[in-house]
């Protein structure tokens, strides 16, 4: 029995699904953010898998950059979260519904 790339990709898909479910279901902003990180990791995993099956370094380079950008995104995102939720301790994502049509 060998570990074929399909397994990794299937795992990546499931991880992504769990991350998506988390974003949809949780109301705490920080937990939602963490679920987004889960999704990013799932993507990274699939990139690396493809890098190996195609014998292409491009996949790993992409993961590298995704990592960097994810870091930057977290920095800015958390800065925003701090700015918005500084006052209220138990503010949730549902409190921001000003764009209701």
């Amino acid at each position: 029995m060998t570990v074929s790339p399909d397994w990794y990709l299937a795992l990546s898909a499931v991880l992504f699904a769990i991350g998506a479910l988390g974003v949809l279901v949780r109301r705490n902003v920080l937990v939602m953010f963490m679920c987004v990180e889960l999704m990013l990791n799932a993507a990274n995993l699939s990139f690396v898998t493809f890098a190996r099956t195609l014998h292409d370094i491009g996949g790993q380079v992409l993961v590298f950059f995704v990592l960097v950008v994810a870091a930057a995104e977290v920095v800015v995102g958390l800065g925003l979260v701090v700015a918005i939720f500084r006052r209220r301790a138990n503010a949730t994502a549902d409190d921001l519904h000003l764009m209701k049509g």
Partner: protein
Amino acid sequence: MLGVTYLIILLPLLGFAVQLVGGRRLGDPVAGGVATAFIGASFVVSVGVYLDLLTVHAPVRTYTQNLWTWIPVGDLQVHARLFVDPLSMTMVLFITGISALIHLYSIGYMKGDRDYSKFFLYMNLFVASMLILVLGSNMLVTYVGWEGVGTCSYWLVSFWFTRESAASAGKKAFVYNRIGDVGFLLAIFLTFDKVHSLEYSTIFANLGSIGPGNITAICLLLLVGVMGKSAQIPLFPWLADAMEGPTPVSALIHAATMVTAGVYLLCRINPLLHASPDAALTVAIVGGATAFVAATIACAQQDIKKVLAYSTVSQLGYMFLAIGCGAYEAAIFLMVAHAFFKGLLFLGAGSAIHGLHDEQDLKRMGNLRRYMPLTFITFGIGWLSIAAVPPLSGFWAKGDVLENTWAAHPALWVVGILTAALTAYYMSRLTGLAFFGKDRWADEVAIDATTDMAGSHHAGGTITEPHESPRIMVIPLWILAFFAAIAGVLALSNNHFSLSHWIDPVFGSNLFDDNLTSTAKLALSSLDAVIAVVGVLVGLRLWMAKAERPSLEGAFLRHSWYINELYDTVFGRPLERVAAFSASVIDPKVIDGGVNGVATAVRRSGSLLRRTQTGYLRNYVLGIVLGTVLVLAFMLTRVWWN
């Protein structure tokens, strides 16, 4: 001069432009003088062109002047092109000539009118349109002129539009014309479909390829157009109502020019008529029937202008009778003669009306020969001419028509001769009532609501003594009287002035040759003369002294065979109901409902869609996920199929 043929049309158009820009400033009477000058100039140019055309010695004298390419669209190549040949020049000469005289007359007749210059504006435009009609070398240019004269007729008939009867008369004239125009248009479409050209020369050259059924169809459709424009059965009621316009309008448009456009058109398409005997017979029957019916109606009319109007319809019927028999030259002869004497009669009637301060009721005229002798003399020449008393022009012209009818369709000749008798009778009735008898205008008359004069100006009350018209109005009368008298000279063949020598080549072999012996011709002519004189005497005898003879003026005839009532019941009322239905149901519910419904639908769908904008971030993420799932599903279906 042939090179400047376009000036014939351009000059009246310039007159129109001048009136449009500065007519009001020129005022009464300078505007009239300017308008007349332009028409007069056009007449001079026409004479020049005519003389030039005489020098063309080909068997068929023609000259084509290409002005510009009007519509170059694929197969449809229509040029603004003028076609000069004896037929069109005949029309042009008497159109410009008689128009000039009537313009001159109008300077005096319309004096003091509030819209003086507007009258001449419309008249100039009318003359220009009529000239476009007769000079056009293809059906579309003719149609432009056709529509133009119809429009100007509408404007001129409803010139005094503040009077409700005048406004509705104008509308009626235009609508009846329009119904005829549909026929003309369909003929144009059919012709283009078969021949792919609208030029007369091309059409006549390709008769073989059109096919007999189509030729008959084209002729009949053009006949519908002619019925509208020249007031034949069944589209004639508008002409009587069109008498609401000023008398010069009636003289010019409804006697000499516009109504003869139909005659011109059918003469122009003589190859088509010649190729379709059925259509020609239809034309003849329509003409004969119209002549008779209109004559009977004229016997019972009380308004002087209405008598003349129905008389016009009747004489036009004669012309179409001649065309239907193939006797085009006779039709044109009668047309020219009729233009002179009917124009004269109308202008004379206008003079009488003017002298009596706008009184048109025959029963309230009388003994005018004592007060308006010049009018009486000229009117008398016109009267005897139309009654076909020899040796005036009407005798020769009508005789020509009847001669050809006898040779072609004897049954229609009977109708024709009866109508001739009636013509003599009713014209004598008119003359007797107006110019002879007692001074009825001096009597107090109660308003009789049953007559159709009940709404006229002087119903009730007396009229002051009539006066002769001013010289500017009488001079045209004399000129027209002169021509009405001597136009018979045109009938004489082998003469340098003879009409047949001039115009027969246009028709070539299509012209009907009656092949009658000279004895037969003499017999027919004598019969015509006898009938005419008898009719005149009977009419005068009955109507010179007495003004009321109810037994001879039946209601059926007075109400023109109740045709207006018939049209009202068959077409008017149902259409009114349809219009009411449209206004109350279709317009508010269907059209407004549709338009408003679109707005409402948009609004409602907007409110529905608005519910997706909850403002909650998580709902929006759900939307993204939903979209992704849909895309995945789509990809799956694509992959599965392969």
